[in-house]
């Protein structure tokens, strides 16, 4: 099998199978949690649950990412907040506004939009990679993180790092032949897609549960979430 064949395989059957595993796996995770049952909350409210939820999302998505130092815990976790924040921002921008990714979205959903200028995407993909390395160093040195990090969390890191770094190399045309690095990028993306339903990268789905629950609990008690 030469690299051209590997590329054909990885952009075709492999990616499609990985995508199916991702969708089925995440659906299973979601349904599994939903089916565990939800008891009705019969406690009389003091404030509005819905207002608490809205406030909590506004705070989490609009306020805190831009002025994180208003959090008192920022001081002792500056590295996690900054590197974590930059990582998520970079990931979102590159995935949503990188030219090549927009083509993927178009082939998947049929719609496309304007991409960010290449140097901006390059800057953010480098930022994402650096942030991830900073987070790794933090995880290797912080006593709490060292204790919390077991094998699956290390695998998470590798699984996210590989697509980012291969994507960066490919977009910058560095070192490898196009079909080699494109294949490696697609293989790593496929591995990531297969891995997500098994690990904690799936938090992007459960975020909406925990964030809603916390907001509702705060709203019900008439406190600021």
């Amino acid at each position: 099998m030469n690299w051209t064949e590997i590329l054909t395989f990885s952009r075709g059957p492999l990616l499609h199978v990985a995508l199916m595993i991702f969708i089925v796996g995440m659906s299973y995770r979601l349904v599994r949690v939903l089916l565990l049952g939800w008891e009705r909350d019969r406690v009389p409210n003091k404030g509005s649950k819905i207002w608490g939820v809205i406030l909590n999302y506004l705070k989490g998505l609009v306020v805190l990412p831009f002025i994180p130092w208003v959090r008192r815990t920022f001081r002792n976790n500056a590295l996690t907040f900054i590197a974590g924040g930059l990582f998520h921002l970079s990931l979102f921008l590159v995935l949503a506004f990188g030219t090549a990714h927009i083509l993927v979205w178009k082939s998947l959903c049929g719609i496309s939009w304007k991409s960010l200028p290449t140097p901006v995407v390059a800057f953010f993909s480098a930022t994402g990679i650096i942030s991830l390395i900073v987070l790794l160093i933090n995880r290797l040195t912080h006593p709490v993180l060292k204790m919390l990090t077991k094998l699956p969390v290390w695998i998470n890191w590798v699984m996210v790092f590989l697509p980012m770094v291969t994507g960066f190399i490919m977009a910058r045309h560095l070192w490898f032949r196009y079909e080699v690095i494109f294949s490696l990028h697609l293989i790593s993306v496929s591995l990531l897609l297969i891995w997500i339903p098994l690990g904690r990268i799936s938090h992007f789905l459960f975020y909406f549960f925990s964030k809603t629950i916390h907001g509702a609990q705060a709203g019900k008690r008439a406190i600021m979430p």
Partner: protein
Amino acid sequence: MKTQSAINTYLKETGGWVASQLEACTRCGICAEACHFYQALGNPEYAPIWKLEPLRRAYEQRFTIAGKLKLALGLEKKLTDADLEHWSKIVYEACTVCNKCAHVCPMGIELGPLIHEVRAGMAAAGVVPGDLAEATEKQRTVGSPLGVTDEMWRERIDWISDEWEVDIPVDKAGAESLMVFTSIELMKFPDNLAAIAKILNQAGENWTVSSTGREVVNFGYFEADEELTKLFMYRVFKAAEDLGVKKIIISECGHAYDAFRWTAHNIMKVPAGVKIVHITEYIHELWKTGRIKLKEGAFDAEIITFHDSCKIQRRGGIIRQPREILKLLAPTRFKEMTPNKEQSMCCGGGGGVISIKEADANRYAVFEMKLEQMQDIQAQAVCMVCSNCRLQFVDSLAHFNSTIKVHGLAEMVAKALV
């Protein structure tokens, strides 16, 4: 055997509410810095998310493919009795279930209530610190965690009534409100009990205490033993029903307020039409509606601050009311500590911690940080609305030879009545 009881409890308690939050954790570790026990003592095992380990393992190994895989590959082990003993010390002696961690978690995971679930497993397995278990047993058998018998209770109420010259109606049929105190107030802060009686009398409240529903503290709730939690609340609800009251007023006790106001309706039958209020919000209402009048500036002689109790302020929402009263009583000398309100730091003695002798070093270490917060604003006095916090403050201030005075809000209000 012990472990199986704990696991069964975890699996029983794990609905979507618990599971979705366990699934949301990214292992970022930010919650550690919110925990006063971790901050004070630096033990990584005090990170709130680590306190959930027994629950997480039971859940994942039973309900998730990843958990089953980890078990099969030997990456993770099943829970053992030794694990339970280990985590029992962590969740009972280094956690006040104050839920500050939930406010810093980027995912908003409600760590406090989840740690309560971890405690529930420990309670089912009988792996509870001896002192806490003993106090709970006293409440079950005698009716009070401090061992106050019916006779002692009656004598003490009579004594307070005589000593403070205040009328305390007992088992008064036709009363509108049932006032339920803590044994801590009865035995250690009788001035607070007398103060509340004085305020209610002055307001013309048609109230009573009950000789059968006489204890508001709930050690079953500290342990997280649901059956005992219900039993201890049932005694009060039964008294409320028998007396036909329309309102139960919870005294200055945080965990009791959390249990009665925010938990009871979900785990048991609460008498229909009976409202549950905390004494602080009720005093505020009495003042706002003009049923009591307070002397402005009655406590303006020294710098006074307010300690936010985890269960009454952060988890209870009674944040504005005590501040409004304090700003009236000490208009120029009231100062806030930092952090405060929802973000405040817990006293270190709540959640049953103060009743466990072995946890003394932990709670003193936490209190040292609280003391620094008070010293930063040169506070000469501190006010609070939870007897459990007050006990921790009185004991710890003496431990650190501090001269800062401790007040219950009701006691201050009673002195400022005009």
